[in-house]
């Protein structure tokens, strides 16, 4: 085999990048789907001052929790689309049939989802933090927790999305089955931000978030791949 042919030979790495490229291209071509979860994030946050009053003191007290809960919800709302469109037009079947091992394809899709939802959300969070008067010293920690936490949300959510992909109205069910699994991420993420506000070192929470990320990165792609196979049977 020549070097050029070797370059074009199918490989796991190539399957991964091809899937990632494809998903990113599709995402950037339908801008509204890209923007909507972010708009939901900002809008949802702006509901809280309207609900509990505009006082800076109270808002800054609930800010870590609100910022994190809204991050959970925006991710959840975007998850249904993770496999849905591919399922509807049949490309998901192609993925399941063609990419072996399947978890590589799943991992590429999850990474694309995180790049399109989780990362922009993280980058947007300082602005949202400003709206809720989160103390400036806590903003870097907030960004760091979201940076560690949103990939976990995408990874765990992929399992739920894969489990509900064959269902006609899977959106709400997806939320129901995944939300309890998000509890540790919420506690550790919001806890780290609160810790900084209280003047405590948040590195323990950050380390635990990183541990959970490592664990989920190794386990959930397999579970999601299995769920896809089951759903497409």
């Amino acid at each position, binding site marked *: 085999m020549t070097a050029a042919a070797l370059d074009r030979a199918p490989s796991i790495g190539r399957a991964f990048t091809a899937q990632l490229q494809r998903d990113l291209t599709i995402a950037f071509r339908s801008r509204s789907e890209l923007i909507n979860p972010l708009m939901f994030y900002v809008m949802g946050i702006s509901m809280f001052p309207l609900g509990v009053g505009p006082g800076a003191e109270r808002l800054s007290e609930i800010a870590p929790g609100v910022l994190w809960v809204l991050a959970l919800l925006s991710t959840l709302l975007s998850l249904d689309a993770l496999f849905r469109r591919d399922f509807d037009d049949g490309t998901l079947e192609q993925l399941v049939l063609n990419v072996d091992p399947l978890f590589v394809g799943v991992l590429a899709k999850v990474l694309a989802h995180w790049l399109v939802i989780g990362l922009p959300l993280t980058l947007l969070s300082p602005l949202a933090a400003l709206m809720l008067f989160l103390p400036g010293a806590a903003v870097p920690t907030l960004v760091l927790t979201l940076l560690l936490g949103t990939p976990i949300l995408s990874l*765990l959510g992929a*399992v739920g999305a894969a*489990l*509900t992909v*064959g*269902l006609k109205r*899977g959106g709400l*069910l997806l939320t*129901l*089955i*995944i*939300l*309890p*699994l998000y*509890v*540790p991420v919420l*506690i*550790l993420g919001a*806890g780290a931000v*609160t*810790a900084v506000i209280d003047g405590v070192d948040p590195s323990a*929470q950050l380390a*635990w978030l990183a541990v*959970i990320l490592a*664990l989920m990165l190794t*386990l*959930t792609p397999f*579970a999601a791949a*299995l*769920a896809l196979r*089951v*759903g497409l*049977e």
Partner: protein
Amino acid sequence: MGRLKTVWHRLGSPRWFFEISGPWAIGATAIGLTGIVVGLAWGLAIAPPDYLQGNSFRIMYLHVPAAILSESCYILMGLAGAVLLIWRMKLADMVVAAAAPIGAVFCVVALLTGAIWGRPTWGTWWVWDARTTSMLVLLFLYFGVMALRQAVPREETAGRAAAILAVVGMVDIPIIKYSVDWWLTLHQTSTFKLTSAPSMPAEMYLPLLVSVLGFYAFFFGVLLFGVGNEVLVRERRTQWVNDLVRSRQP
């Protein structure tokens, strides 16, 4: 070892299981109910009142077994789910299906008795205490498994989907428990701890032990009944089920 293997292979036949499990279900339920009645009567009427809480602590004899069982039941469900996914044993699917509602009921019982117990001791129906919160999340996990199972139209797919969720939940449960414990140490420092008086005298401890064992036997029996029902429902088109139904008709 060889015999264990035979049993394992035979478990692949729902019919064999149904025929063998009937007496076990009746026996375990009977033993369980006896244990529960003895344990509760002993705990409610005979055990001495608590020096701090008076008589209100007696709800513990119902509350603690229910809480323990709801957790054991989830572990059993997760293990059954793993067996289904690895060996594709039909019976494991039926165990997942039968275990979920039972575990959810134990969860609700534990939460309700906890609320009733909390009113006189903590002065409030609900406290965001570590165990209460983990129990609530556990209930949500049960609801998720049940909802997913109901939503998927094809039986076989539904079973495997629910099994995947049960296994993922089982992996996540220790993380949830740990993080909830952590969350409490961060947010709440003044919670009245029931465990602050750790050494329980034997006359209070023994009825609890009897009650817990009774609950386990009862759970085992009810689970066997539930799995037996699942077997009949799923095999309803087979000859042996039809023969069985006809033979039971007057």
